[in-house]
């Protein structure tokens, strides 16, 4: 039962090993040189910093991530449906397509609402926060 996950564990181990080795190698070999303070300053094309870098960003990013969550769950629910469609059709259950389409249609109502509210428009004025 769990034997199928052995390659996954091996791949994770190998990837971790390679990544840590590479970064560790340059960490060890890249040391011991002149360390100028200027080099560790925040890079802004050579200009002196005028303000901090932690700023509030546009609420648009939140809207995108929120819409993404909802549609991601939709996809996650459609996945088992999609995979089982072939088997169910072969058994003569033609309605299975309708089940999925109803799901899609209900969500496209939300999609149309988002579109009309301008959730997908980034250039519109006044929608930034």
């Amino acid at each position, binding site marked *: 039962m769990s034997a199928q996950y052995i390659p996954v564990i091996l791949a994770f181990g190998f990837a971790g090993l390679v990544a840590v080795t590479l970064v560790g190698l*340059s960490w060890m070999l890249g040391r011991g040189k002149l360390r100028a303070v200027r080099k560790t300053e925040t890079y802004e094309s050579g200009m002196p910093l005028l303000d901090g*870098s932690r700023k509030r960003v546009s609420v648009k990013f939140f809207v995108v991530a929120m819409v993404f969550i909802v549609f991601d769950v939709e*996809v996650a629910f459609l996945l088992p449906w999609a995979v089982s469609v072939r088997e169910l059709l072969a058994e003569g259950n033609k309605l299975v397509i309708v089940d999925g389409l109803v799901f899609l249609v209900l969500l496209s109502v939300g999609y149309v609402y988002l579109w009309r509210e301008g959730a997908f428009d980034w*250039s519109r004025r006044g929608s930034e926060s």
Partner: protein
Amino acid sequence: MWAELAVTTAKVVVVALAMVTTVPIMVWVERRGAAFIQDRLGPNRVGPLGLFQPVIDVVKLIFKEDVTPAAANKGLYYLAPLISLGVAMVTFIVIPFGAGHDVSLFGVPLRGLIVAPDLNVGVLYLLAIGSLSVYGIVLAGWSSNNKYSLLGGLRSSAQLISYELAMTLAVLGVLMATGSLHLSDVVARQSGAVWHWNAVTQVIGFAVFLVAAFAETNRLPFDLAEAETELVAGYHVEYSSMKFACFFMAEYLNMATASALTVTLFFGGGTLPGVTLTGWLGLFVSTAVFVAKMCFFLWLFVWVRWSLPRFRYDQLMQLGWKGLLPLATLNLVWVGIAMTMGWLR
């Protein structure tokens, strides 16, 4: 038990190293290809045709001074490139690179040139683990404590999640036609003739997938993350030496994985229509066919990068949400209807 473990380990190492090897090759192809397209020379000093340039670059990157910005959040700053590279290096284990179901090694059946043949979540594993790559980018942007990094990271991650949806929906169409999550089944279903390839039966899905793949790998025309003219270099402004190289390698690895996935899902994987070979010969030929198809898409990535201008960010988001998402859904509806009517094999 131990022999099986040894074979699996060998497969992991061989496939992973093969994928990693594509990185320097692609770097060379990209630079020479760019030069060719722009009618200039490109790297030509180190070795014949500049072939050793990537090797020298790696050596330089390893010996480069390891600068950590004073303002950075140290732990997360080091974690971010590791996440990016790590995620890029574990996704391809579900892709069948070649046939070979009748071949055995040390008495253990090889079960095809695929690292995890039994994993019963199949391609879903790739999608799920691939969705974690957002963290590498967001964390790189945030932990550098630089406003360009932060904006680049946020932009890039918003782009990734937007196109991930369209990509997954396009994959869903293929999975519907296949009725299985195993990519080897997807390949088997497309064998026989060219018109069985999903690229033919699901043209819209293929187009959506390809465009989304360009966006997912942060390549031009969708490389908004590192739009040099506005964001300096995006989420990895503050990264140098090998930590920068990790992001760089991750990008090229993702490109290779995306090409391999496109070949598997839409271009019949390692099968050659009309040809059926068995044994070791079948394994070698199918792998060669797979690599050849993959090379085409890798070249496409380079070709497009040096031919098309960059999108504007609002255009990018609109293309993703208003263009690709409805198209992918349309493809799903088409597959559903076609299957009910029995038009698809």
